[in-house]
């Protein structure tokens, strides 16, 4: 279906273009006047009217077909009195039987009936899909071809259409944001209907109950997210303790001391560090750093767990070094040269100039960079999933096992995703918190950096 409909649309595009071109040439010859725009614009006009309505139909069909068919099948399903059905399982079974007739053995008669209903509906849907696409394309071309008169300004219309397309492209970003906000808020509201928001924000017990079977739970869960927030904060602090000094000093060295040659070699190397996928850092933390931290903890008499906040935080710190160093590098470079020269001119040496003049001048920008790095660290997932652990633990000891917001989101959504229990929904509530905090940090950081730039420009 996917492939052939694309072929169909491609044929439509091609023929409508040719048709539009020849038609306008014919029309203008008939009337003996020159057309107002070049023939290609008329062809494009026909093409757009042929293509876009068909694409809209195509996508809405692709999106809604399956759901509509499923709804019809379910609503026509002959339920047996007294039996309890799980809609999702039932649907999966019907689909399996419909796709693979060999699965039909031993299935009840109503499922086999529903499966044949399902496949017949699919067939109807396919046929009507192709016919409607062809009809829509023809109608569009017909409408457009009525306008193919030499006095019609095709170019103006086309340019207007192109504007609309461009505006649509730029609004995708807005749609994305709206989608994020709505999906997070909608599912979070469902979560907060079952768990009070105060318990979520202020209670210190996080035991999300796990449904053993449908409708059965091991125990009532409790959803106090404080240990998770604390764990996130701890990992972030460790990461910043590594990344802030190393990143900032690297940036200072590169901006103020290093020769052109060193800069040329080191900067791409730091970019490599920035481009390594986070799961690779996770592997590194798990295989090299965590055992090292454990051994180190034992050597100084602290019982370290095999996955610890320290290991995850340190590796996360390494990950954000290039982030901090490149941002700070930009900031330091944009400090005006005359400040430097004035300081050196009154006899200060380089270190004094940097410490007493450049860093204070660059401070807002550096703070902005740090805030962005913090938001990066909070939102980072794979390192902590692999190296930090999954059990909530309210502690300030970095050698212990902690968990973070991102880890809990992953844990809640791995495996069965039943959207009717708070355990799954808690992922969205945590995601909402994460989104709000990182957005807040970003807005502040971008404001600070912007104001800082304005000061020196």
């Amino acid at each position, binding site marked *: 279906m996917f492939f052939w409909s694309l072929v169909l649309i491609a044929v439509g595009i091609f023929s409508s273009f040719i048709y539009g071109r020849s038609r306008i040439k014919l029309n203008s010859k008939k009337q003996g006047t020159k057309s107002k725009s070049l023939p290609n614009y008329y062809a494009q006009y026909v093409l757009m009217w042929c293509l876009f309505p068909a694409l809209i139909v195509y996508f809405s069909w692709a999106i809604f077909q399956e759901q509509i068919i499923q709804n019809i099948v379910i609503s026509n399903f002959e339920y047996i009195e007294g039996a309890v059905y799980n809609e999702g399982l039932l649907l999966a079974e019907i689909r399996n039987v419909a796709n693979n007739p060999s699965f039909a053995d031993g299935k009840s008669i109503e499922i086999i009936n529903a499966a044949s209903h399902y496949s017949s509906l699919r067939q109807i849907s396919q046929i009507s899909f192709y016919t409607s696409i062809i009809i829509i394309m023809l109608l569009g071309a017909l409408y457009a071809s009525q306008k193919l008169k030499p006095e019609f300004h095709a170019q103006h219309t086309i340019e207007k259409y192109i504007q609309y397309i461009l505006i649509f492209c730029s609004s995708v970003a807005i749609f994305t944001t709206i*989608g994020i906000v709505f*999906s997070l808020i909608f599912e979070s509201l469902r979560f907060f209907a079952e768990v009070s928001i105060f318990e979520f924000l202020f209670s210190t017990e996080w035991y999300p109950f796990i449904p053993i079977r449908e409708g059965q739970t091991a125990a009532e869960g409790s959803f106090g997210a404080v240990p998770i927030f604390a764990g996130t904060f701890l990992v972030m602090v460790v990461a910043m303790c590594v990344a802030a000094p190393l990143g900032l000093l690297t940036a200072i*060295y590169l901006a103020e001391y290093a020769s052109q040659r060193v800069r040329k070699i080191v900067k791409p190397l730091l970019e490599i560090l920035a481009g390594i996928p986070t799961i690779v850092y996770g592997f590194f933390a798990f295989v090299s750093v965590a055992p090292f931290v454990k051994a180190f903890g034992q050597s100084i008499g602290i019982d370290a767990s095999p996955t610890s906040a320290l290991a995850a935080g340190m590796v996360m710190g390494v990950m954000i070094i290039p982030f901090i160093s490149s941002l700070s590098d930009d900031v330091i470079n944009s400090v005006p040269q005359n400040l430097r020269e004035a300081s050196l001119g009154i006899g200060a040496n380089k270190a004094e100039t940097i410490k007493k003049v450049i860093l204070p001048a660059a401070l807002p920008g550096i703070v902005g960079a740090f805030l962005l790095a913090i938001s990066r660290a909070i*939102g980072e997932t794979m390192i902590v999933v692999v190296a930090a652990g999954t059990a909530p633990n309210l502690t300030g000891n970095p050698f212990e096992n902690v968990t973070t917001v991102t880890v809990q989101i*992953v844990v809640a959504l791995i495996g069965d995703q039943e959207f009717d229990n708070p355990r799954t929904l808690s992922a969205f509530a945590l995601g909402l918190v994460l989104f709000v905090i990182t957005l807040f940090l970003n807005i502040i950081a971008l404001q600070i950096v912007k104001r800082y730039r304005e000061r020196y420009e």
Partner: protein
Amino acid sequence: MNNSIAKEKIVSLRKKRSLEDMRFKYYGFTAMCLSLAVLVFLLYTIFSKGYTAFQKTIVLLEVDYNQEVLKLTPDSSDEDMEKGKFFRVKKQAIENFFPDLSKSDIKLVKKLFSINVDKEIKDYFLDNPEVINTKQQIWVTAHSDVDQLLKGNSRRDVPEDRRKLNDIQLSYVDQLVEENRVKQVFNNFFFTKADSRHPEIAGVAGSFMGSLFTLFTVFILSFPIAIGASVYLEEFAPKNRITELIEVNISNLAAVPSIVFGLLGLGVLLNVFGLPRSTPLVGGSVLALMTLPTIIIACRASLKAVPPSIKEGALAVGATKTQAVFHHVVPLALPGTLTGTIIGLAQALGETAPLIMIGMIAFIPNIPTGLTEPSAALPVQIYLWVESAERGFQEKSAAAIMVILIFLFMMNAIAVFLRNRFERKW
């Protein structure tokens, strides 16, 4: 007298200050070296853990293709041969693997072989049907435990109950080594097979194809949209509230954690639109939305780099604004936009968390062939192998990391090449 004291003070102060200067410079240098040292250590760790995965251990097995046992005759048809009783041949071969094996010993010997051996014995026969009623020496894949032992990844000096292979099995392996009936060869399975529960026959082909399909989706979706958006914002957008909102939106979207995009995919693409779970189509859509801001920012920069005189020249000879932009500015900015897109794709390739959210973490033992088929992706495959308790998967995860890093390196090299080859300096 006073003068000389003052002088001395000044000299010592100057010495102190210049020492301070030196020290500060040294701090910076150390910080830089430390960061780079970590990079080197990281790459070293990956290489040293992973290079062994490119080899597999094979064992010489004597197989008797007896027609009675196989229930075949020399002139059986191809279809019958497919149905030959190869598991019986394998059982016999293992029973005769060492002379005089007891029943319990046979069980132990069986565990030295991969689960794939049945298929290898069968494939050998189907390739050379003339070997019926002969004894053949065939190299077959060893079990991961044997493989790990011979590679030195698992130790033999730990107590027996904490080892995968017990003492008898160890002695068997030693005997095999002594008799040269075991050797290590290039591991073709790693590049031709998808994920498996058995480390010795797990490979990256499935997840690699999954990643390729995902990247294809990302490219198809994000490249046109990004170009459209950046052309609009750079060339056409009026300076008003809405444009400003879009710009702020894009810069904030660039910093939203990737896992939130995964939640978007789960909440909207899967639950509302009902797109198929675990497929490159959904994964690619989510990653496209995620990388869109990055690509838009790069595209805008390259559009900005085209000097206004080009556009003004076109306008001066009578082109409309749309013509000037699409016929002159965009083609000149195209190399830059492509470079930006490739860098965005490289970012998408390494992204793991959003793919986990939309279910690409499922165990998929076959190689996907389309956008709407459930599949794995390279980074998720790495995650699955890192988390796996089985020792044999650890070297696999490191080797898969090598594959992804080489892939990334090639993408970046292409981007740099495009930039150097086609980018114009005005």
